[in-house]
């Protein structure tokens, strides 16, 4: 592993570590809740996550770089690639905590600038200058950061080292005027105010190709091929090659963030035996290239014995074939199920406080009272009608007394909401310290249900996953007819991720359930984490078009479909599926529970 990462930079950081002031340390955890928002406001790519620079997703405490390089004290620098913005896990460079905190924000502002020309020195100096002109409020902070940094830096012993150090100091003091580093100078001391000269992923990639990493600031977006970190989703071109799942196998991710899965082509034929074989043993190779050592993988899909409990024989549902531009009747079999091993359970303790708060808020969403005029009895007089009646009576037109009261019948909000959650295997992916997406979805469902039960709107909760068209699994978590009680909570607590995302069929079934609800406004809320896909041809365009049709059908039937997703790339396809205003992307998946409930409140207000 050392050979992948042990670039000159690691040798360098080992040598030139700043001492640090632990008592003034500021942790990434402290600024993380504000980081995403700040980085985006600075113009940073909204698709990027924020991660700790120690080498794993933020929150996972594995000091990867340190372990690999065999050192423990090193300077962590910030950098950005196509996946994330990486920030030091802690900053204790300065004796003043305010400065350490300021350095986090400075680094985010700098990293949000578009990549500048030139080598490491020039591009950082250029970026700094741009920050200071577009954000004059940062000037004071920057000056303080530089003034406090200079005394911490050593003077190199030899001449070229001194020239380089001189150039760096000049660039720090007069941003925007830097010339390139003197040729042939040894690796300079790290500059914690600047971005990483040779981000680990790029270094690893270069190393892998047998090249020495260049000193220049490479645009690390190009190093797509070697993402060290686990990616949540494949992109469409990867998809063509059969990449479909991610694994939890940590060992894999130390050399690559994900692996390609060569899946056997299978179309519609119900070749159960062979297909099951395919499902359980997939051939894995890196980057689709043939590797000498092909790995065999067992996917931990639930075996039949541990499966959920089916209810009835299932329902046949149509599916849209975009090539033939028609709905193919009885194409999928949807199987209603109950989660296995669900026993009544109370709301978990850790959610109690949030649930109490939500219940209070949602109770206040008082049922919409509408004034009804012209009632035969009621608490208020209908003045308009009385005056008209008197006027007409006076002119001798009116005869019998009309109904002259106003009533305020406690009409329900007349709102029904069906929440459909994607429980496919991709929800098993990892989110850092909040655990897996499935945990966040589970908590979201629990809190959402508490909120809706408090405001009295009719609601149902369902989950789905699929295993080809013959098995669209439709989990009943809370039916419309039943109360939200510990039995329903137990079912939500028992959900597990599995299989794929045949979204169209699940939406169609949800539509027909929701249409049976007598409410005036009916909201079909879909919580998803990615594109529709399934093992057969239900992928790419086919899956997207079928889902789009299902959404259109729901809308035509008078329902309001709305999708909430944690897929950062959702902007690419969700407008096509749900319309420009029919979806919302939750960039910080940990906030899904809050976002979901506040979204519901604002949608229905």
């Amino acid at each position, binding site marked *: 592993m050392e050979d992948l990462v042990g670039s000159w930079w690691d040798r360098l950081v080992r040598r030139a570590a700043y001492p640090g002031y632990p008592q003034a340390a500021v942790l990434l955890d402290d600024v993380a809740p*504000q980081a995403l928002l700040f980085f985006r*406001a*600075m113009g940073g790519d909204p698709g990027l996550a924020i991660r700790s620079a120690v080498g794993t997703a933020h929150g996972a405490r594995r000091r990867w770089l340190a372990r690999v390089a065999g050192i423990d004290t090193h300077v962590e620098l910030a950098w950005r690639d196509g996946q994330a913005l990486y920030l030091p896990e802690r900053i204790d460079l300065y004796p003043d905590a305010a400065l350490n905190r300021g350095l986090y924000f400075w680094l985010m502002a700098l990293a949000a600038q578009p990549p500048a020309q030139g080598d490491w020195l020039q591009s950082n100096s250029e970026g700094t200058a741009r920050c200071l002109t*577009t954000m004059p409020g*940062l000037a*004071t902070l920057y000056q303080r950061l530089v003034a406090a940094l200079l005394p911490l830096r050593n003077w190199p012993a030899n001449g070229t080292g001194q020239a380089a150090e001189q150039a760096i100091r000049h660039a720090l003091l007069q941003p925007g005027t830097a010339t390139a580093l003197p040729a042939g100078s040894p690796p300079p001391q790290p500059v914690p105010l600047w971005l990483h000269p040779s981000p680990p992923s790029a270094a690893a990639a270069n190393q892998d190709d047998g090249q020495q990493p260049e000193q220049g600031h490479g645009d690390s977006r190009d190093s797509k091929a070697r993402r060290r970190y686990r990616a949540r989703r494949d992109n469409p071109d990867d998809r063509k090659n059969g990449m479909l799942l991610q694994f939890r196998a940590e060992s894999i991710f130390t050399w690559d963030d994900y692996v390609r899965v060569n899946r056997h082509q299978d179309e519609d034929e119900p070749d159960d035996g062979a297909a099951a074989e395919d499902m359980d043993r997939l051939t894995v190779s890196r980057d689709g290239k043939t590797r000498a050592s092909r790995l065999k993988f067992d996917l931990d899909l639930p075996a039949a014995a541990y499966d959920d409990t089916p209810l009835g024989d299932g329902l046949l549902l149509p599916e849209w074939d975009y090539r033939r531009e028609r709905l193919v009747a009885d194409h999928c079999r949807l199987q209603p199920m109950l989660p296995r091993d669900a026993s009544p359970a109370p709301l978990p303790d850790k959610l109690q406080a949030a649930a109490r708060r939500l219940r209070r808020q949602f109770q206040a969403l008082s049922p919409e009272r509408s004034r009804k005029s012209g009632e035969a009895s009621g608490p208020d007089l209908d003045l308009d009608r009385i005056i008209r009646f008197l*006027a007409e009576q006076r002119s001798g037109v009116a005869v019998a007394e009309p109904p002259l009261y106003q009533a305020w019948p406690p009409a329900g909000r007349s709102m029904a909401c069906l929440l459909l959650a994607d429980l496919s295997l991709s929800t098993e992916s990892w989110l850092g310290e909040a655990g897996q997406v499935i945990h966040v979805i589970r908590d979201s469902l629990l809190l959402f249900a508490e909120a809706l039960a408090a405001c009295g709107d009719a609601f149902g909760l369902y989950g789905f996953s699929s295993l080809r068209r013959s098995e669209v699994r439709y989990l009943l978590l809370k039916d419309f007819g039943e109360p939200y009680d510990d039995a329903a909570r137990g079912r939500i607590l028992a959900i597990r991720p599995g299989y794929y995302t045949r979204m169209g069929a699940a939406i169609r079934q949800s539509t027909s359930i929701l249409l049976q609800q007598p409410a005036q406004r009916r909201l079909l809320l879909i919580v998803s984490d990615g594109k529709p896909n399934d093992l057969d041809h239900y992928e790419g365009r086919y899956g997207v078009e079928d889902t789009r049709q299902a959404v259109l059908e729901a809308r035509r039937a008078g329902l309001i479909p709305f999708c909430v997703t944690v897929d950062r790339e959702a902007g690419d396809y969700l407008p096509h599926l749900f319309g420009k205003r029919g979806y919302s992307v939750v*960039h910080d998946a940990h906030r899904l529970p809050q976002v979901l409930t506040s979204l519901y409140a604002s949608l229905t*207000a």
Partner: protein
Amino acid sequence: MNAPHRAAAAAPLPFYQPLADECEVFEAAWRQQLPLLIKGPTGCGKTRFVAHMAARLGLPLFTVSCHDDLSAADLVGRHLIAAGDTQWCDGPLTRAVRAGGICYLDEVVEARKDTTVVLHPLTDDRRILPIERTGEQLAAPPGFMLVVSYNPGYQHVLKTLKPSTRQRFVALAFDFPPPAVELTVLREEGGADEALARRLVALATQLRRLGGYHLDEAVSTRLLVYAAKLIASGMAARTACRVALVEPLSDEPDTLAALMAVVDTQFGA
């Protein structure tokens, strides 16, 4: 709402900085006697635009802010008791028709659907307003124009205009003004000097990147004008930004702290 209207004397033209050709579109629609629908986020200048155009065309303006309890009588008129007698009193819509002026229904999606139906005969080529209670039927004079506005944010997916209502209007989409225009607005409206206006506009650009992700609604021109006014009146810039731009946007402590960090990139000490 039903108080008798006193025609305003020729007021000075309210300041409005055009973004594109909206003034020409408005005037053309008025000349052709077509109703106009304006959509756009809150505080982007819709109301101001209508006020400006009304003054420019020399037309009286009757504005109604719609809400879910607005009845047809609130628009058309009702009987009132005066001096022991009942007296018919025109609603703002009727007054606008009689006066040949502009009737502006703000946030029209908030009104109940049965209320907006009274607009139908006025918004097709009949241009009439039947007043059921008095048996009168008014024909709108050429000067009359109906203008409605709404905010099509995603929070409002459950509330939209009926297609049959919607398809009676010429529509203009508004958005927050581009930086150069907003700069002028802040100088004219907020009394900001060039340097202050620049920083506020830069801050607005930063904050608007968060609309839809972290903030339900992006910061409006209206709020920027507030901030400019407070600063111009001597309030410390950071304080003004906090009270006028940050606190109105969110209640979440983390979001507020992050927004203040953004403010500091423009107005930091």
